[in-house]
Each structure stands twice: as structure tokens, then as C-alpha cells.
């Protein structure tokens, strides 16, 4: 069962504390609203998470008809102390407020944070994450010990549902991030892993009903 975080509305400041920082990112409109950032999590938190992911984290394998990966919800786990702020109300509120500013929307209090691990042979086929009335925005944070291009695990953005209609490819660079608005057009995938382990934190956000009506979507 996943706990939903209730946090007070934060002030928005580059100096406010929180392991996640996406300030300064530039929103791109095509092929769907998104941004990329080379560094969006602090070193101490990232290092603590990686150590934990590689030793005691409660991974469980999930297989479906279009992806296979290890995963778990951070709200169901006992995080290492240096990473705890990720899911504490203050840290969650900090990430949420930054995403809200970037996308120009208002989010509900609830946020979900899950961890994913892709190991050699695993991949996530093209999909769009879209479900009406569900989460509306994601932030994906990459964590790893360094992956060469030959290792795979590329995050791919598409212009359409056609897998050959690639818009651009993102390397899974340690500490980097991708934020995007979920819609019927937000087609993406992760190429097959060939070596190493690729970890990600996936934050999910929910626009308020008023914001959804204003946008005429979701």
C-alpha cells in the first residue's frame, strides 16, 4: 500500500532545502511538454540511494507484456537516513513546487515516488503513461555508476506511437533528470539494457481538478 504525502505549500526558492532541484530547466513543447536537466539531485542523496539500491532495497521483479523491471515504492520502504528527505513532506513539497512552476500548473498535495531498476535484458517498450484522471506529470531521475552508450538504457522520446518516429534519445547520465507532462502524445520508452544496472527515481504529480479543467485535458 502506498502512503500519500500531505505537505504544506512551500515557498519557491533555489535555496530552499530538498534533494531534488530542477530550477533553471527550460520547458520544451515538442513533441510534448518536457524538460531535461543534467543534474537534479544532490550528491549525498544520490550516493546514499545507490548504495542502498545495490544492497538492501526491497526490489521486486515485475513483468508485463511490454516491460520488465525491478521496482518498489519509496513510501513502502525504510530509506537510508541521507535519502529520507526525498519522501518527507518538506522534500516532496519542494520537488512538487518546482515542477508546478516549470509547467505552469497547480498540483494536488499527493505525490508518488517509486524506484525502478533495469538490468541487462530488460527494457520498457513504447507507451504514453496516459490514463484520464490519473497522474499528470512525471519527473524521472537517473542514478547509476556510469553507463557507456553500449550499455543501453536510453530514454527515448517519440513524435508519435510509431517506434521508428524517434524525436530524441536521452543518455541515462547519473544525476540527470527528465520531467514531462503526461498526455495521449507523451510516447516514450527505454531501450534494452545490455550491461550494468540503471536506476531511476520516478516522481508522479497530479494537477488539481481546476487546473485540469483549465488545460482542457486529463
Amino acid at each position, binding site marked *: 500500500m502506498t502512503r500519500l504525502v500531505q505537505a504544506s505549500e512551500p515557498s519557491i526558492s533555489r535555496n530552499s532545502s530538498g534533494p531534488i532541484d530542477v530550477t533553471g530547466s527550460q520547458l520544451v513543447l515538442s513533441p510534448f511538454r518536457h524538460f531535461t536537466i543534467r543534474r537534479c539531485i544532490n550528491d549525498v542523496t544520490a550516493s546514499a540511494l545507490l548504495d542502498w539500491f545495490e544492497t538492501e532495497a526491497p526490489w521486486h521483479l515485475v513483468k508485463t507484456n511490454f516491460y520488465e523491471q525491478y521496482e518498489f515504492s519509496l513510501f513502502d520502504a525504510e530509506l537510508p537516513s541521507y535519502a529520507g528527505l526525498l519522501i518527507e513532506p518538506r522534500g516532496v513539497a519542494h520537488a512538487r513546487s518546482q515542477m508546478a512552476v516549470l509547467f505552469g500548473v497547480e498540483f494536488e498535495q499527493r505525490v508518488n515516488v*517509486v524506484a525502478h531498476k533495469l538490468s541487462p535484458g530488460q527494457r520498457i*517498450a513504447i507507451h504514453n503513461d496516459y490514463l484520464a484522471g*490519473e497522474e499528470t506529470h512525471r519527473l524521472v531521475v537517473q542514478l547509476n555508476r556510469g553507463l557507456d552508450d553500449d550499455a543501453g538504457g536510453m530514454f527515448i522520446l517519440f513524435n508519435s506511437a510509431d517506434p521508428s518516429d524517434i524525436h530524441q534519445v536521452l543518455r541515462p547520465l547519473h544525476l*540527470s533528470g527528465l520531467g514531462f507532462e503526461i498526455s495521449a502524445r507523451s510516447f516514450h520508452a527505454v531501450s534494452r539494457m545490455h550491461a550494468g544496472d540503471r536506476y531511476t527515481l520516478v516522481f508522479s504529480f497530479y494537477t488539481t481538478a481546476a487546473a485540469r479543467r483549465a488545460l482542457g485535458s486529463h
Partner: protein
Amino acid sequence: MSDNRKPAKPDDLSSEKDLVISKDQINSVALARLVEEVRNDDPAVSRHYDRSYHRHNR
């Protein structure tokens, strides 16, 4: 614990690699492999999405 653990590369942020690779930077062979690796055999999933995927994101 894995025997292959090593510290995250300290020079990652100042490194040579760009985060974003445009499609025209990828050779045709590598591009074809990427497309094949992410092909979805169930087109209904990409159109309507499978709720099973969402369950793990909450």
C-alpha cells in the same frame, strides 16, 4: 553486495557526454536496433495504456 561496486564517476557532470542525442546523430544501424528494442507487440498498450504499468508508479 555486488563485487562490482564502484563510486559514481566524479567527473560525470563535466564530462564530454551530452544528455540529449538527436536522431540525426545516431547511425542507421544503431537507430534500427533502438527501434526494434522498444517496439511494442501489443499496439493497444501504446494507444490506451495498460493499468498494470500504472500500479507500480504509485
